């Protein structure tokens, strides 16, 4: 614990974007200029009161923040154990935490004067959040999405189109989120003069992991204040799902220095960790280099990235934000896995006993929190990040139930 206590978490990453051995800027030469430009704009605006005021205003009046911290009384009672609180990011405009980040990056884009934004998306939540801010600011928007995800998430694809975005199907590789990110990087390198790349998670080349974390940290700052106000103390544990890890880092970061707060990042266990068919690099991967950063990855013995599996498109990614890799190594956050079936059960359970339908991504966090709560005392509290709402997943769930809508 002494090692951790001496770390100033706000000083991470270092000047070159490294979190210990992770992070960094592993991109081809052509992109360095764009990253330098982004970093310098971010540095100049980060502590600018006017920029911060604009960000706060948009979060309050456009996104609808602060999001509630809701005491799930019935769920707590039926579970038995620690008190379960839900951080209701599902109530944000567009239905997930993703909008916090796209609001921030769109403000940066505005400052660059670039008229075109691009994004990658898996479940479509980040794509929708990007298309939304682009519509509001009158920017041209192209969203790259794996062909397989387009099938799985047709509702979000249509939402993006209604918002005026062009959804570009990605047919290379495994046709999922990682390939969408490859294609977005290729587009950026080609159109770097007039295009701003809005990355949706806390991964990618420096400075993305840092700036996405900082925009998403509003989740943890609010949860901290709300916990103190509602329970008179800090929570004993935080639980959030981890794909790339932006909702988790947003919740965790403002608590990292609070040693009494335990943290659990929940990866997608897919068909089960033992099957190899999952998306849990922190549980069952090794460090490597992908998408501009060094981090834990799912790869084969030749260093090729392997196809992942999760019932939730938003967690179906072979990498993870580099800060999570570092937090794992130093032991500050514990990373666990929940498989498809457990997540589905949690989805149904929370829907029935709280009237809250969680996204399949967030259902992973719900499932683990329930297990954890049973091992804790009734005077302890757990804050679970309910990162998105489940409406987008209804077709997937219906299909599992054998129902055609």
């Amino acid at each position, binding site marked *: 614990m002494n090692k951790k206590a001496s770390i100033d978490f706000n000083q991470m990453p270092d000047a*070159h974007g490294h979190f210990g051995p992770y992070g*960094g*800027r*592993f*991109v*081809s*030469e*052509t992109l*360095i*200029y*764009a990253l*330098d430009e982004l970093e310098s704009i971010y540095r100049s605006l980060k502590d600018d009161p006017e920029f911060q005021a604009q960000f706060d205003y948009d979060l309050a009046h456009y996104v609808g923040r602060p999001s509630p911290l809701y005491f799930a009384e019935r769920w707590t009672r039926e579970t038995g154990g620690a008190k379960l609180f839900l951080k209701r990011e599902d109530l944000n405009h567009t239905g997930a935490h993703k909008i916090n980040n796209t609001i921030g990056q769109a403000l940066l884009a505005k400052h660059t004067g670039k008229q075109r934004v691009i994004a990658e998306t898996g479940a479509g939540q980040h794509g929708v959040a990007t298309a939304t801010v682009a519509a509001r600011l009158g920017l041209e928007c192209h969203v790259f999405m794996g062909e397989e995800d387009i099938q799985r998430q047709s509702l979000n694809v249509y939402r993006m189109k209604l918002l005026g975005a062009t959804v570009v199907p990605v047919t*290379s*590789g495994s046709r999922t989120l*990682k*390939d969408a990110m*490859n294609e977005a*990087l*290729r587009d950026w*390198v*080609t*159109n*770097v*003069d007039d295009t701003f790349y809005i990355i949706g998670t806390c991964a990618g080349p420096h400075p993305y992991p840092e700036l996405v974390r900082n925009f998403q940290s509003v989740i943890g700052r609010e949860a901290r204040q709300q916990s103190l106000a509602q329970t008179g103390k800090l929570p004993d544990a935080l639980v959030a799902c981890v794909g790339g890890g932006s909702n988790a880092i947003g919740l965790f970061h403002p608590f990292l220095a609070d040693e009494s707060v335990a943290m659990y990042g929940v990866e997608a266990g897919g068909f089960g960790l033992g099957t190899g068919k999952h998306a849990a690099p922190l549980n069952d991967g090794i*460090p*490597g*280099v*992908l*998408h*501009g950063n060094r981090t834990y*990855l799912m*790869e084969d*013995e*030749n*260093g*090729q*990235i*392997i196809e992942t599996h999760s019932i939730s498109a938003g967690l179906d990614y072979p990498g993870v934000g580099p800060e999570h890799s570092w937090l794992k190594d130093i032991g500050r956050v514990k990373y666990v896995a929940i498989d498809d079936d457990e997540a589905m059960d949690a989805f149904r359970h929370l829907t029935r006993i709280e009237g809250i339908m969680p996204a399949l991504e967030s259902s992973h966090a719900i499932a683990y929190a329930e297990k954890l709560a049973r091992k804790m005392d009734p005077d302890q509290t757990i804050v679970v990040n309910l990162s998105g709402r489940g409406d987008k997943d209804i077709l997937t769930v219906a299909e599992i139930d054998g129902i055609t809508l």
Partner: protein
Amino acid sequence: MNRIKQRFEVLKQQGRKALIPYIVLGDPAADVTLPVMHALVEQGADILELGVPFSDPTAEGPVIQKAHERALAHGSSLRDALTLVKQFRETDFTTPVILMGYANPIERLGYQHFIELALDAGIDGVLTVDLPPEEAGEFNQQLGEAGIENIFLLAPTSSDKRQKMVAEMAGGFIYYVSLKGVTGAGNLDVVSVKQHVDHIRTLTDLPVCVGFGIKDGASARAVADLSDGVVVGSVLVSKMAELAARAETSPRAFSQAVSSLVAEMRDALDN
């Protein structure tokens, strides 16, 4: 002396420009690459650039992406590349070979282990697309100690400060990326290439070669006139794809197809 240095010295004495073809290891089949490498040399290639397939080749356009996919479909790997170059060296001791690829397969082997295998195979240079100078420190030092040249890219967007940094770290030659974009994209802007190459020359004595966007004898010549050589990739790989699409399997057919292209470029460069 490293074969890349030797080759550029000879070219300089002869007043000729370097022709550097790029193909992907194992595209489309394992037995095609070695005969094609020898054929490229016979037609006048000065240095061979062998692409190491990677699952996520973010700097490549569709043509080379598909070549990586064809090669990965039957399991081509970095180890295979090293084995293949060792076989190539059984009969060719003089043509420099560069491996071009991405960091992760090398990291998986481990830098030191990779370098041992590369030395044993007779690799002369390495170009790791996603390992810019900021991240290349340790690898660069180990390559330097082993006498393997670490080749870096410079782009139209590289700042003056970065051009200096790359010039200081780079070995072999500077690979100037002639356009903003992925491999195989767009058209060359010769005026812009000249400005950039002239500037890079003020920073380093290394040869400067130009790649991305060179499609035929004429564009090769136009760029070679401004630089020390040209890298030709997508146009060759397209030809491989054409044959693969026709279910061609004879290594000889692939060799013949790329030979005529390379011969045309050699002719344009020399005459």
